[in-house]
């Protein structure tokens, strides 16, 4: 490990003489900086998406799995009786930790995203909802449905199974897509830096000829290019990462936007994840440039 750290510091410190031998190439320098910056910016979003969908999947999987809803659709004069009967059934059902009827305000809040504020819930034929919190291994839905059918015919049990699984599956796929996007971004960065390195090597064919003539080994020549491109990628991606993090910070907050966008961003320790992007981009640049340089030097001989 110490050896790798020492080599990383050597790379950053560089060999001033070797660096001077290769003249600065403005175009490839700008191209590498821009590419690394843009890719790091996109990587921050891909990372945010992946982490957010991961959180969403976990939340849906855990929270929804522990709750279910009982809906009572009955004529106005029977609602209270059916409600009491349903609560009585639930209180004696093994695996049910708690059951409570949602208040009019809570029902209004649930409908607000679709109908807007100040919905007159009391005047509408909206079913009464009961929230059920499970405990232990949960209740037996088949048995509960049978009891409800007998004792509370107006009650319909929704244990969320129908729509929880596709949602969790969708969130899981989104998370995978986020990681695929990060891999593609890394690969694209490598490809772009390879092209830029090859352009720089081609532009410096005369320099390479002279260095070979005086006995320079391929690795010595390659090192001058590798160091430059690695540092450019590091600087460019650091700038891109900062910009990306700022952009994520400026996204609408959870409380304001609600819905799916709620979680798109970083939370707590996840804010540290973007710090990985610049070193990763530098590593991609290091290996891409090294491979391109050594391959080009072999072909030029």
């Amino acid at each position, binding site marked *: 490990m110490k050896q790798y750290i020492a080599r990383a510091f050597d790379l950053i410190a560089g060999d001033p*003489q*070797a660096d*001077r*031998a290769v*003249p600065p190439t403005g175009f490839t320098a700008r191209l590498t900086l821009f590419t690394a910056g843009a890719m790091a910016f996109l990587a921050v979003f891909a990372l945010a998406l992946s982490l957010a969908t991961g959180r969403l999947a976990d939340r849906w999987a855990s929270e929804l799995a522990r709750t279910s809803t009982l809906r009572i659709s009955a004529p106005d004069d029977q609602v209270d009786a059916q409600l009491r009967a349903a609560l009585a059934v639930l209180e004696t059902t093994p695996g049910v930790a708690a059951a409570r009827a949602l208040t009019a305000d809570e029902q209004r809040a649930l409908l607000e995203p679709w109908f807007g504020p100040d919905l007159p819930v009391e005047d509408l034929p909206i079913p009464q909802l009961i929230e059920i919190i499970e405990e232990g291994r949960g209740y037996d839905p088949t048995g509960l449905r049978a009891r409800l059918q007998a004792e509370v015919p107006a009650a319909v049990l929704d244990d969320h199974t129908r729509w929880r699984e596709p949602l969790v599956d969708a969130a899981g796929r989104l998370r995978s897509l986020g990681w695929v996007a990060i891999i593609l971004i890394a690969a694209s960065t490598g490809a772009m830096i390879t092209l830029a390195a090859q352009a720089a090597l081609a532009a410096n064919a*005369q*320099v390479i*000829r*002279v*260095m*070979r*003539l*005086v*006995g*320079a*080994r*391929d*690795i*010595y020549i390659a090192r001058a290019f590798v160091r430059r491109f690695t540092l450019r990628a590091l600087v460019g991606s650091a700038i891109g990462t900062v910009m990306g993090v700022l952009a994520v910070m400026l996204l609408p907050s959870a409380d304001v936007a609600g819905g799916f966008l709620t979680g798109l961003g970083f939370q707590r320790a996840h804010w540290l994840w973007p710090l990985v992007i610049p070193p990763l981009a530098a590593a991609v640049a290091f290996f891409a440039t090294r491979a391109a340089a050594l391959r080009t030097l*072999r072909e030029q*001989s």
Partner: protein
Amino acid sequence: MIDLENVAYSYGGAELFSQVNLTLAAGSFHFLTGPSGAGKTTLLKLCYGALQATGGQVRLFGEDAAMMDRDAVALTRRRIGVVHQDCQFLDHLPLTDNIALPLTVSGREGEAAGNLDDLMGWVGLRKQANQLPPQLSGGERQRAALARAVIMSPDVIIADEPTGNVDWEMSQRLLTLLVELNRMGKTVMIATHDMNLIRAAKSQVTTRVLRLKDRQLMQAGAEL
């Protein structure tokens, strides 16, 4: 030092030369002549490992060049100083850095300080030390190329048309420097069209003159 045994070289299906036998012994002084396109530069490149023979065997300091890896070729080149007609400098670096480049690439830049000043004086370029190569005259560039070729104190010096772009006076000056190096025990091989240069050298040092013509390398005739 350098041995070529039945060496052939073909490019694009055409044979440039074949059955070439040549030995560059320590302290020897060779001229290589021949018409343009005969393959003089190619033969020199075989001698410093820049090309691989397509036939026969090239031995550089006892090692078969065909069996050497790229690093070994690079290390071998540090024992051979090369002077090209077009000099080949890094135009963005001052003259001193260009001349010290062989030391730099071999990690011996610390040795440059003392050697460099003496060497710049020897080739008469102290005043031009901080100039860039494009600012130098043809003769100055050739002397600088010679200084770069010898800064590592190589065993062999190979020069390809070193006097091609300079006047007679300057070519005499360059020849004097090369003869001095030979007297110090260095092996010298010069490719040239300039018969006057060869005659001038023969009056100062024992030379062997080779002629590359019609795909064969032979001892040059009595006209020299």
